[in-house]
């Protein structure tokens, strides 16, 4: 596999353990997506589902640079971002099932997953709204000089909403330790990139905010790793924000169940043929970083963890109706 690794200082390449860690996260996302679509289609679970299939490498290559103490804000198509950041499967699945054992007691659902213990602070169902809030998390790091970084995930469609422009400008003026990660999957809901976006590429907008901008093949683990390393390094060092445009492709329609007739069939077929997860797997073995058998063990462990999480979720109780009045305010108001 060829990579387009940006020029970087030495140490920019991941070692074998890091590469396997990246693969573990990516295959977790892929296997979780496959399981989710299966369970939803079987009717055991009723929820809106925005598949991140095809975009696995981006958060996997970013998250190996982060600890639980670092923060992410993501969006409704963001389960991959959260799994890569360490969201426990049981907490995820029980939330998807609306059960009280879910990470939000079943009150948030798939679009509002939150797990502060893993730095997963806000998941928004509003396009673009991850960015202004990420700035605030990063502002606290700036005030405390704690070296923590905040990642704001969003899609190419979100680069056309006001929140993007306000947030990038403020982050640049205040030199906040935030990394804006645009996952350019070529479609804003049902509308193709060219139909909705004036800029030839999203990264062209970075200079307008006097911000570093990097365009990278988000499906290339080494390139994505290097770009993330550099941007996160700048943020931790107090050198301000970066806009990363990570090129990728969404394998499924906007929402599970839509017919995706608006997607170019050849483009989609080509993207699926170049599926980044099995490609990464083959490359790891070919380069001698890991054996097929070792990866099979990782994959089997994930399947078993998914079996456990699904059963845990479906066998958990729903929240009691008293939850309608709870968590509206700190104290229930009459």
């Amino acid at each position, binding site marked *: 596999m060829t990579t387009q690794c940006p020029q970087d200082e030495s140490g920019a390449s991941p070692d074998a353990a890091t590469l396997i860690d990246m693969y573990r996260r990516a295959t977790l996302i892929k296997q979780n997506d496959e399981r989710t679509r299966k369970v939803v289609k079987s009717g055991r679970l009723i929820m809106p589902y925005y598949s991140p299939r095809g975009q696995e490498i981006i958060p996997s290559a970013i998250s190996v640079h982060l600890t639980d103490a670092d923060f992410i804000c993501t969006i409704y198509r963001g389960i991959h971002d959260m799994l890569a950041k360490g969201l426990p499967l049981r907490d995820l699945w029980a939330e998807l099932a609306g059960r009280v054992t879910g990470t939000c007691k079943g009150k948030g659902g798939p679009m509002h997953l939150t797990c502060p213990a893993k730095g997963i602070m806000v998941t928004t169902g509003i396009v673009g709204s991850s960015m202004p*809030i990420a*700035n605030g998390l990063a502002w606290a790091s700036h005030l405390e000089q704690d070296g923590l970084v905040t990642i704001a995930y969003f899609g190419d469609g979100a680069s056309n909403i006001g929140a993007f422009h306000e947030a990038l400008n403020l982050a640049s003026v205040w030199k906040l330790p935030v990394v804006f990660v645009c996952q350019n999957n070529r479609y804003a809901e049902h509308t193709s990139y060219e139909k909705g976006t004036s800029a030839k590429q999203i990264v062209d907008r970075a200079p307008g905010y006097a911000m570093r901008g990097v365009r990278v093949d988000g499906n290339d683990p080494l390139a994505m790793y290097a770009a993330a390393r550099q941007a996160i390094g700048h943020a931790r060092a107090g050198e301000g924000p970066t806009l990363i445009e990570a090129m990728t492709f969404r394998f499924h329609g906007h929402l599970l169940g839509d017919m995706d007739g608006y997607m170019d069939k050849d483009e989609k077929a080509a993207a699926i043929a170049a599926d980044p997860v099995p490609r990464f797997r083959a490359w790891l073995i070919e380069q001698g970083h890991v054996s097929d058998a070792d990866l099979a063990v990782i994959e089997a462990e994930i399947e078993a963890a998914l079996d456990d999480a699904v059963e845990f979720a479906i066998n958990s109780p729903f929240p009691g109706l008293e939850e309608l009045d709870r968590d509206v305010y700190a104290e229930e108001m009459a």
Partner: protein
Amino acid sequence: MGSETETLDRPGTSAKPVTLREGINRALGDAMADNGKVLVFGEDVADREEGGVLGVTMGLSGRFGDERVRSTPISEQAIIGAAIGVSLRGYRPVAEIMLMNFTTVAMDMIVNHAAKLRFMSGGQTHVPIVIRTMTGSGFANGGQHSDYLEGWFAHTAGMKVVCPSSPADAYGLMRSAIDDPDPVLFIENLLSYTLQGPLPEPGLRVPIGKGRIVQAGRDITIVTYARMVQESEKAAVALAAEGIAAEVIDLRSIQPWDRDLVLSSVRRTGRALVVHEAALPFGPAGEISSTIHEALFHSLKGPVGRMGGAFCAVPFSRPLEAAFAPHAETIAGKVRDMLASEG
């Protein structure tokens, strides 16, 4: 009668009167001195930018530094987003949205995020922010700088909404708003900034959700808040000369609002009039009036009255703007009509 009741709920007041603007400024300064996590930011709020367009935050950046008191770009979504994010990390930001009409630009951040994160996260996160904003007719500001939109926010689960009418309440409510673990919209009235009054002892809190009887009376309860408190007090003076004793309640906050105080008053007077500057259709007076009707229908001497701003954009032309909001004479007139209609 007035001097007796004016000191209700105002223990330990300072002798020297201050303006309402000064009350807010002192509350911010005291809160910042007490708690290093309190931040003040918004358009023009730092001293270099003259402490806001009306100087409410003047002196704070000089005292607490440019990191804790920070002027921002004109980016309301970015302002509230930053407030939410920094509050998720334990800070207590006081974000200024210069004018209430500009909250419309940040509505997504306020309504979809600040108000809902506690619930949607199952209580794992919460958003202890204060949003300061000013508004009100009478300043010749026209249709996009004058609206009272508090009903929108009071309608949003998770938001608290306060509207002080005096320097003491401005101080005490601001201190409570900064302490509060939930998002609080703090509405300041443009015409009231120069209003003078005593200031409480430093540190005094006025609890959010507790109203105040401004003036006691037996014949009718006037329920109001913000600048309409002053107009209602004047109306009560005029009515007193005619032998009508109006009780005036300043709600001080409308989400939550002091149902107990209002209902106990109306139980005594048997009559109620709700007055605010916001337009009437679907506004706070509808909610308050309906609550009174539901609780006290059989003991009311007549239907609850409502008064609000005209149902139009706030007009510019002086006579139109003067007629836009209720004022002492129209309030007194409405009370007379209500009493007369009982036959």
